[in-house]
């Protein structure tokens, strides 16, 4: 019932149901597809293979790789978030907290074990996500005769920051799960917030003065700031550059979301009676 045995048990728990590989396949397919389409469009546009009609943003060639590789987090962050959320809500849904707490009565240890495994899973999904954006992206760039910048230290620093972002998103998810408890409600909240509320909010903020200072602190925006590149900030236009957080500040904001949710979840729901 130490943290080590609890973490080992938690990892087995994650790997003995199908959700981990279903989400892994979905992540790879979604990120690879988005990265391929976007790379193709942007590369065609910036090499002049596709005539720019004046409307489409024509990106400088050297900015393309970072933009394309960051698809893994910019559109893929919902997957680590879901992984973390499900790690907790599944226990409530199937009432497995009873055997879990019987085996590990110190609930702080049980939650810490989820964080340990969450960090490992975050790194695992990061590798998959990064491979799915960098692999097809670099291949298509090469095909257009553009430099994929794979030897550049900046690219590897970007990849490192994406790994941190994936890990933080799993922790945020564990916090969301601990606070919300109900699996269906939690999934709906995660999807509505990440796929609708935050994108719309950030889009609107690009046009409404003063709002951008607030939306920069939204979790998705903080994650993009941490990674340092995102198709999302690109489409917002150059004006939003000034309202983006520093990369380390973005990381701290995302970590703060995780910690606040975890603390609230621990004290309000995790320690509650299991009936």
């Amino acid at each position, binding site marked *: 019932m130490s943290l080590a045995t609890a973490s080992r048990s938690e990892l087995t728990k994650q790997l003995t149901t199908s959700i981990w590989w279903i989400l892994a396949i979905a992540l790879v397919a979604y990120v690879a597809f988005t990265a391929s389409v976007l790379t193709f469009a942007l590369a065609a546009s910036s090499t002049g293979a596709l005539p720019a009609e004046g409307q489409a943003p024509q990106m400088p060639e050297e900015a393309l790789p970072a933009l394309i590789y960051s698809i893994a987090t910019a559109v893929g962050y919902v997957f680590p978030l879901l992984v973390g959320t499900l790690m907790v809500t599944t226990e409530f849904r199937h009432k497995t907290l009873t055997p879990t707490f019987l085996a590990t*009565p110190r609930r702080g240890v049980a939650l810490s074990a989820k964080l340990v495994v969450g960090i490992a899973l975050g790194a695992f999904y990061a590798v998959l996500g990064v491979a799915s954006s960098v692999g097809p992206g670099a291949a298509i760039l090469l095909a257009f005769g553009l430099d994929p910048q794979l030897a550049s230290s900046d690219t590897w620093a970007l990849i490192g920051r994406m790994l941190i972002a994936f890990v933080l998103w799993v922790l945020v998810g564990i916090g969301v799960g601990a606070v919300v408890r109900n699996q269906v409600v939690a999934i709906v909240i995660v999807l509505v917030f990440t796929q609708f509320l935050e994108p719309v909010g950030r889009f609107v903020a690009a046009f409404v003065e003063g709002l951008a200072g607030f939306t920069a602190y939204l979790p998705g925006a903080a994650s993009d700031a941490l990674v340092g590149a995102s198709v999302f900030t690109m489409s917002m236009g150059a004006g939003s550059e000034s309202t983006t957080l520093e990369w380390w500040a973005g990381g701290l904001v995302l970590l703060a979301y995780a910690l606040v949710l975890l603390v609230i979840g621990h004290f309000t729901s995790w320690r509650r*009676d299991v009936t």
Partner: protein
Amino acid sequence: MPDGQVLEFSGVTKRFGSVTAVSEFTARVEPGVVTGFLGPNGAGKTTSLRILLGLVRATGGTATIGGLPYSHLPHPLQSVGAALEASSFHPGRTAANHLKVYAQAAGLRASRVDEALGIVGLSDVAGRKVGGYSLGMRQRLGLAYTLLGDPGVLVLDEPANGLDPEGIKWMRGLLRQLAGEGRTVLVSSHLLTEVSQTVDALLIIAQGRLVFQGRLDELSDQSEQAVVVDAPDRAALTDALQRAGVEFEVLRSGFGVRGADTVEIGAVAASAGIALSSLQKRGPALEEVFLDLVSGARVHGSAGTVSAVPVPAPEGGEQR
């Protein structure tokens, strides 16, 4: 095998908002015997057990296992095995993996999983997902979970639910065997008949309060014993009983005499030269006593009633 431990509830109270689920519940469960924990649905059995296991926090009082609260046990699964409901499984996980998860959490060796599955007879279906299990198979898997750590204490909530008659018979044998090895076995049920063949000791709870604690044979009061007597010549028997000044009531199966024993009634018949066709003791049915205790129509001294000061029990004085 760890030794059986004494389970002790001491003034345990649990309120959910304005509802008092358990009130001043004080009881002691000894090792080496099977103890039945009886009460109607909603009486507070499951809540009491969850408090004992640290899953529910008591509003007042303490529940301990060998003197320690559950959360302070150094090796919980090796000390206490508990099965609380038949639905604590992820349906997409196999039975073997389900047990593996908790064996790892408790630091048990992997072979315990197969051993526990073997004891409950699930070895052949260990690789199947629990979602496809019948209720009876889930009960067996729940029992396998309790046996994982080879614990000295077993706490089972309604373990017979969903078992077929053969399964129930098997379960009774297993529980008796486990208690015979010196373990503490606490089994809850809402049916007296279900446990009366298995248990040695009994706790009865109603509306959150203890209403009986003692051995099964202490449940019915000797003074309530009646004798049922019958003879082919009922008229002669009626005469003889009336002459002896014995009050009786006429039953379908003969005459019922309260407050007498068979020796006395046999002597009355013999001295009148009446041949009897039957002469037997009849206590109140246990189920009747149980229902009276639960409804409050009957109060047993072992309940400790409402007062905080322990009232000496009129009989079966070993408690407290």
